[in-house]
């Protein structure tokens, strides 16, 4: 019997982890579709950022209520991995509470700690569900979340509730069985776990030994199965941030937020243009980057890989959108939607490649227009509120700017008044029509 369950366990584990690994490979391949950008400098600063922002959740705490709730879930998630480790050992070797004999009192403390955090996580999950569905927080009910994104969010929360329920069923029934001396763990007494030593007898005290054994296994297997389901659901959900928040904060831009990158391809051309020694009729150098580069971005492949990593990392919390001045005043722009669109398009491009032996076959669609409209892009004030707000250092602004670059430099599709502004700068070096020779007139004006 125990061999059989070990085999079943191993099969589920292998299939679960294997399927997840396959999807992780897809994510990595898709992220690598992005252009290269060097983020290998300043490793110590990057580690520090990751420790503070991802691990320490520093930026979450600007909004204390969700921050505390989220921290409970996060802490429970991290600590429960210890119990998961025991489940793996027990599952493979057919043991029961493998760590208990060697850890002794520390084991009791550890499981108690997990139980307390799990209870807090349960409270947090219920609070999160009510914030979404009863209190209807504006940022969690914006138009870009209607339909699947809202279901996705609720589904994740429900899975977390099931997970916690499994933990308490497992420990609670095992406690009652141990009281009776019938647990798979040798001996008789109380495990002394903070919550289940009370909750177990209260809930399951009146059940028969047989039912208790069944329920204990349901809790144990349920916990394990939920972990496998959750692991594999990640790829399809908005929940990848539990993993990607770490690389995302590590690779985030370290420059002051006001510093936008200078396009190197443009620098080359401008230098050439301003160099009096250049022969204007010279043929281009034979191999100099055979494919002429596109200025700016109209599709996901034109973005850099960090921007694509950003898109997978986004968990659609909407802090960016709720702080966006354009969105607050009713404009169509929503930084969260920029990230969601980028990911959706990236997934579409990836699926296209899967269907065509790893080669992308043009599908007459692009991130620009089919997902993100120029109206959204032109509503941005580049104020960096979205970047400042993001708890995992995503930059929707950099994507907006790259797409504006495409609109202006490839399509000359700027709004009329901006074209006038740019013409003025070209002609008289000011955004308004004043002669450069009048620049110092203010000195003598009354």
């Amino acid at each position, binding site marked *: 019997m125990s061999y059989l369950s070990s085999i079943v366990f191993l099969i589920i584990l292998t299939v679960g982890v294997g399927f997840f690994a396959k999807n992780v490979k897809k994510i990595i391949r898709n992220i690598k579709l992005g252009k290269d950008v060097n983020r290998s400098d300043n490793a110590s600063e990057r580690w520090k950022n990751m420790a503070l922002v991802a691990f320490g959740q520093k930026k979450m705490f*600007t909004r204390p209520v969700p921050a505390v709730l989220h921290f409970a879930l996060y802490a429970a998630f991290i600590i429960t991995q210890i119990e998961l480790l025991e489940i793996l050992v027990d599952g493979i070797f057919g043991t029961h509470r493998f760590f208990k004999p060697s850890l002794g009192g520390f084991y009791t403390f550890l499981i108690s700690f997990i139980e307390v955090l799990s209870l807090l996580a349960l409270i947090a999950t219920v609070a999160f569900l009510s914030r979404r569905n009863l209190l209807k927080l504006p940022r969690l009910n914006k138009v870009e979340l209607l339909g699947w994104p809202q279901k996705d969010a609720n589904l994740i929360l429900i899975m977390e509730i099931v997970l916690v329920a499994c933990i308490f069923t497992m420990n609670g029934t095992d406690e009652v069985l141990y009281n009776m001396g019938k647990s798979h763990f040798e001996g008789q007494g109380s495990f002394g776990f903070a919550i289940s030593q009370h909750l177990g007898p209260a809930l399951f005290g009146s059940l028969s030994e047989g039912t208790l054994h069944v329920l204990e296994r349901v809790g144990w297997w349920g916990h394990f199965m939920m972990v496998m389901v959750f692991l594999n659901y990640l790829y399809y959900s908005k929940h990848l941030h539990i993993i990607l928040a770490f690389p995302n904060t590590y690779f985030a831009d370290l*420059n*002051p*937020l*006001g*510093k*936008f990158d*200078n*396009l190197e391809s*443009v620098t080359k*051309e*401008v*230098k050439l243009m*301003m160099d009096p020694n250049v022969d204007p009729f010279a043929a281009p150098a034979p191999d100099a980057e055979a494919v002429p580069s596109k*200025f*700016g971005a109209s599709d996901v492949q034109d973005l850099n890989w960090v921007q694509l990593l950003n898109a997978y990392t986004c968990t659609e919390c909407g802090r960016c959108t709720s702080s966006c*001045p*354009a969105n*607050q*005043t*009713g*404009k*169509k722009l929503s930084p969260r939607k920029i990230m969601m669109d980028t990911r959706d398009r990236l997934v579409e491009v990836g699926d296209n490649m899967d269907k065509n032996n790893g080669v992308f076959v043009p599908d007459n669609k692009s991130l620009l227009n089919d997902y993100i409209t120029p109206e959204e892009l*032109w*509503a*941005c*004030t*580049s*104020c*960096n*509120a979205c*970047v*400042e707000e993001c708890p995992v250092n995503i930059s929707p602004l950099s994507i907006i*700017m790259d*797409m*504006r*670059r495409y609109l*202006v*430099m490839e399509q000359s599709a*700027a709004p009329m*008044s*901006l074209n*006038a*502004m*740019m013409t003025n*700068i*070209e002609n008289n*070096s000011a*955004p*308004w029509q*004043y002669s*450069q020779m*009048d*620049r*110092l*007139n*203010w*000195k003598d*004006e*009354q």
Partner: protein
Amino acid sequence: MSENLVVPTMAEMLAQGKQPEVLFWVGCAGSFDDRAKKITKAFVRILNRANVDFAVLGTEEGCTGDPAKRAGNEFLFQMQAFMNIEVLNAYEAKKIVTACPHCFNTLKNEYPELGGKYEVLHHTQFLKELLDSGRLTIEGGQFKGKKITFHDPCYLGRANKIYEAPRDLIQKLDAELVEMKRSKANGLCCGAGGAQMFKEPENGDKDINVERTEDALETNAQIIAAGCPFCNTMLTDGTKAKHREHDVKVLDVAELIANAQDL
């Protein structure tokens, strides 16, 4: 009133074989916009009072390219940048001060990679330096006890994390500095950034500058202090939209200091 502003140009300085302590980058708004010109003059009056050895580029200055870059025109931005860098480097400029956070950000962050490496200061930082070194003294004057709220310009605050310099200056006026509900890193944009100054807003249900002006009015401040010529325009328009232009003034930090000293 007759003004005797002393505004030497870098060319004049060079002709005399001199190198000023600091180059004052006036910027397009500061040079041409009627409202912003007042800020420029106020700042110069303070510089003159503190005997700061400065010079401007005058007709040799050109747009930094900021609005072009934020509008997506990297070509135009870099052309402007290279032209300005050539001029600045020819004069061997080391230290630059400007009253425009957009010029400040561009000069400070985006020019170095293109060959323009300078120490760049926002005028509130520079004034703070003057104050700390004892070259400038500030008295409250007419602003003593008045309620003043400071609007963080995005390109000074979030973009470059400069929150304290302007606030320190306001507090030196013996004024009561009151914060808006959204300030510093959470400050709301005035609506002008990202080249919005030069276009109509997209369709929505409100203008951003009105939303921001409401934040400021909520504090019951008599004066909204700004540190950016564009924010200044947006918030002034905002007070007009709310019919409060008669009792709430929008003033640059440099104007506050100059007015307090009756300069």
